[in-house]
C-alpha cells in the first residue's frame, strides 16, 4: 500500500472509529481503497514487524480447557486431525488448535444452544425439518465421544487415541455412515458436527483459538480480514498476506 501516507498517518492519527463517524463525503471524496487503507491505522504498528523478531514466544494462556476433560480433548485432537490432516499444504487440525477451538465454543452459547429453540414437545421429524433433539451440543459431544471410545474398544480393543491412523479413519467412517448402533444420538449427526466444527476451527479468525498463526488462511491464500479490495477486485488473482481482526483494534 502507498507509503507516502506514513507521515499523514502520524499527523492525523485518525482512529478508525473516528473515521467511521466522519465517513460520508469527506472520505468519499478520496474514494480510493489504497488511500483509505493507509489512512486508517488499523495496521497496528507492532504487527507490521514479524512478532518473533522482537520478543520471545509469549505464553499463550488460551491453551487451556473450558469444557472437555483431558481424555475428551485428546480424542477430539486425534479425530479432527483425521478430518483435516497435516500434509504438504500445511498443518492439520491439531497444530491449528482446532480442539481448543471446539472446547472454547462448547463452553459458550453454541455449546448450550442458547440462541436456538429448545422448547418441548420433542417429536421425531422428517429430515427436511431439521434437528429435533433435546440434547445440547455439549451433551452431544459427551455422548458422541464416549461412544467413539466404546466403538474403538469393541472393534480394536484399544482407546481411540491409541489406534493407528487407518483404524481411526475406520472408526470415524463407521460413525459417518451410521454403521454404529446408538440409541441416544445419530452417529452421522455427531460426525457431521465434528466435521463442521473442524472446518470452523481451521478457518475462523484466530481470536477463537483455532486457525493458529492464520495458517488455515495461508494454506488457501485467503487474505482474512482486510478493509478493502478496491485495488485488486478487477485484477487477476493476487495473493495478499492475511490480516486478522486483531489488526483492526490498533489505535
Amino acid at each position, binding site marked *: 500500500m502507498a507509503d507516502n501516507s506514513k507521515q499523514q498517518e502520524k499527523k492525523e492519527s485518525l482512529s478508525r*472509529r473516528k473515521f*467511521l*463517524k466522519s*465517513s*460520508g*463525503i469527506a*472520505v*468519499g471524496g478520496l*474514494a480510493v*481503497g489504497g488511500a483509505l487503507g493507509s489512512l486508517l491505522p488499523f495496521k497496528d504498528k507492532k504487527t507490521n514487524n514479524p512478532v518473533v523478531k522482537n520478543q520471545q514466544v509469549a505464553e499463550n494462556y488460551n491453551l487451556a480447557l473450558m469444557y472437555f476433560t483431558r481424555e475428551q480433548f485428546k480424542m477430539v485432537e486425534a479425530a479432527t486431525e*483425521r*478430518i*483435516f*490432516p497435516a*500434509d504438504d*499444504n500445511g498443518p492439520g487440525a491439531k497444530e491449528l488448535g482446532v480442539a481448543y477451538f471446539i472446547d472454547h465454543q462448547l463452553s459458550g452459547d453454541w455449546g448450550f*444452544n442458547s*440462541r*436456538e*429453540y*429448545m*422448547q418441548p*414437545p420433542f*417429536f421425531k*421429524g*422428517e*429430515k*427436511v*425439518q*431439521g*434437528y*429435533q433433539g433435546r440434547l445440547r451440543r455439549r451433551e452431544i459431544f459427551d455422548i458422541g465421544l464416549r461412544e467413539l471410545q466404546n466403538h474403538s474398544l469393541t472393534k480394536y480393543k484399544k482407546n481411540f487415541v491409541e489406534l493407528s491412523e487407518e483404524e481411526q479413519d475406520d472408526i470415524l467412517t463407521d460413525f*459417518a455412515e451410521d454403521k454404529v448402533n446408538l440409541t441416544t444420538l445419530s452417529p452421522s449427526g455427531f460426525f457431521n458436527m465434528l466435521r463442521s466444527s*473442524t472446518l*470452523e476451527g*481451521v*478457518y*475462523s*479468525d484466530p481470536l477463537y483459538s483455532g486457525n493458529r498463526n492464520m495458517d*488455515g*488462511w495461508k*494454506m*488457501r*491464500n485467503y487474505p*482474512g*480480514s*482486510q*478493509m*478493502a*479490495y*478496491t485495488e*485488486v*477486485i*478487477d*485484477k*487477476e*488473482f*493476487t495473493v495478499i498476506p492475511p490480516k486478522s481482526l486483531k489488526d*483492526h*483494534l490498533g489505535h
Partner: protein
Amino acid sequence: MAKTLPKVDVVIVGVGWAGGIIAAELTKQGLNCVGLERGKERKTEDYFMMHDELRYALRYDMMQSLSKETITFRGNERIRALPMRQYGSFLIGEGLGGSGVHWNGQNYRFLPYDFEIRSKTIERYGEKKIPQDMTIQDWGITYDELEPYFDKFEKMAGISGEENPLAGKRSSPYPTPPMKTTPALEKFRKAANKLKLHPYNRPSANLSEPYTNPDGVSRAACQYCAYCERFGCEYGAKADPVVTVIPVAKKTGKFEIRTHSNVRRVLKSGNKATGVMYVDTTTGEEIEQPADIVVLTSYVFNNVRLLLQSGIGRPYDPVTGSGVIGKNYAYQVQKGNATGFFEKEEFNTYAGAGALGMVVDDFNGDNFDHSNLNFIHGGSIAISQTGLRPISNNKVPKGTPTWGKEFKANSIKYANRVLSVGGQGASMPFKHHYLDLDPTYKDEFGDPLIRITYDFEEQDRQLAKFLSDRCVDIMKEMGADKIESMEELGPYDITTYQSTHNTGGIIMGADPSTSAVNNYMQMWDADNIFVVGATAFAHNSGYNPTGTVGAFAYRAAEGILTYRQKGGILA
C-alpha cells in the same frame, strides 16, 4: 395491567426498510410517528469487528434469537409441523434496520409481467396453462403505476446499475454507474453474449461511487471487502435503513424509536385499529400505544402472525380457498445452478460485494416462450462475486470424500478456482401453501408461533432443472474444465440456506374477496391499518424482493398521507 401512553398519529411496528421509509416520508410531512423495534439499536460504528465469518455468518449474531421465537414448518398438512430449532433455509433479522442491514444489496424491480401475471399468462397461453391449484392473480397495480416509486427508492438508496434491456421501462437512469467488473464477471459477460443472451451488471445498493441522495444523505463508496450478506457495512456504503431513511426521520424530531419493544397485539375497536400492545423486553412491562394509524412493517412471518393473533382480517382456509390472511405464501427456487472448476486459473473470489454480479434475464418472467414447457415464469441467472468465505466455501469435485487427506488437498486446491452460475427461480403460490398459527408451539410470551405449510411443486422441479441446464450452457461457454450442476430439486428442506425471500400472506389486489390489502397496502377490512412488506406479494418473482418492497413502502407512505387527509378506503 398494561400502561397506556398518550396517543400518536402513527405507530410503526418494525423499523427496517419498510418502517424506515414510512417513518421518513410521514415525519417529513409533520406526522408524529413512534417506531417499535423488538431488537436493539444499531449504528455503523458498532461494526468494528464485522469481518468475522464465525460470529456473523455461522452463529447468526445479527439475527433474531430463535430461543425466543421461531416458526414451525411442514411440507404438507399430513405432516406434523415442527419448530425450526436452528437456522437454515432463511434468516430472520432483528434490530434497528431489520433484515435491511444484513442484505446483500441486490436491488431489482419486478417485471411488468409480474404485476399482471394471470392476465398475461392467459392472454399468451390460454387458461389451461395454469395448474388447478396454482393461485396466481394480478396484483391490482401495473408496473407503470409503480414505476415512480421504484425510481424513488433507487434514488434514495443510490442504486448502482446499468440498463437491463429486458426489464420494464425506466423514467430515469440509475443514480450511480455500475460497480466494477471482475475477470470472473467478464467471463460470464462474454459467454452470455456468445449465447446471444443479454448480460448486465446487477443493480447494486453497494455504492459504486460516493453519493448524496435527495434527502441529503451522503455515503462513501463500496470497498469490495466481501462482507455484506449476514453483515452490516462499516462504511455505510451498502444502503440500509440505518444510514439512509432512519436518520432522515429522526432529524425531523417527529420520530421516536423504541427498541427492545416487542409488539404482541394490534388493538381494535370495531373495524378500526386503536393502537398496539407491546412488551418492553428490558422490564417485561406491557404497554399500550394508541395511534390513529397502525403500520405493520415487520418481517413477513410476524406481520401475518400479528394479524392472526389480533383477530384482524379473515384467516385463510386452505380447504375452501376463502379468507386471505396467510394466503399465497411463496418462497424462491434457488437451487438450479452450475459450478465450474478451473484447473489453470485462479480468481480473486475472496474479494467482492454483496451485489457484485452479472445477470441475464432471458429466462425470467415471460421473456421466453413457455408453450412447450411445463412451468410458467422463470428466473434470473447470475454469476455473483459476494466473497467466498473460507468456512462456508469448500467446494470439491464430485467423488472427493467429505473429509480426510483428499478432501483437504482438493478443498485447498480449488479454494480460488471455483466459479458458480446460479438461477434465482420464481415461486408460484398454490392453494395448499399458506401460513397460519401453530396449535402446539409458543414463543417467549406464550403466543403461538407461525406455521408454514409449503413444499416444492412439479412447477418448481421443472423450473429448477430448466434453469440449471441454462447455467450449464453458460458455464461451458465460460470454459470450466469440470462442471457440476443440480440434477434434481428434491423436496423443500428448511435446513439448508436458500434465500431470505419469504413472501405473501397478506397479499395485495384489486378485489377484497381475494386480497388482504389494496395497492396502497391498506387493509380492506380495517382502513387505518397498513401492512407493508413482501407480505403483499401475490407470488414471488425471479429476483431479490427488496427493490419491490421499497417501492411498495413509498407507495404506502403516499397512501397513508392521503388517508390522513381524507379517510376511507383509498383504492
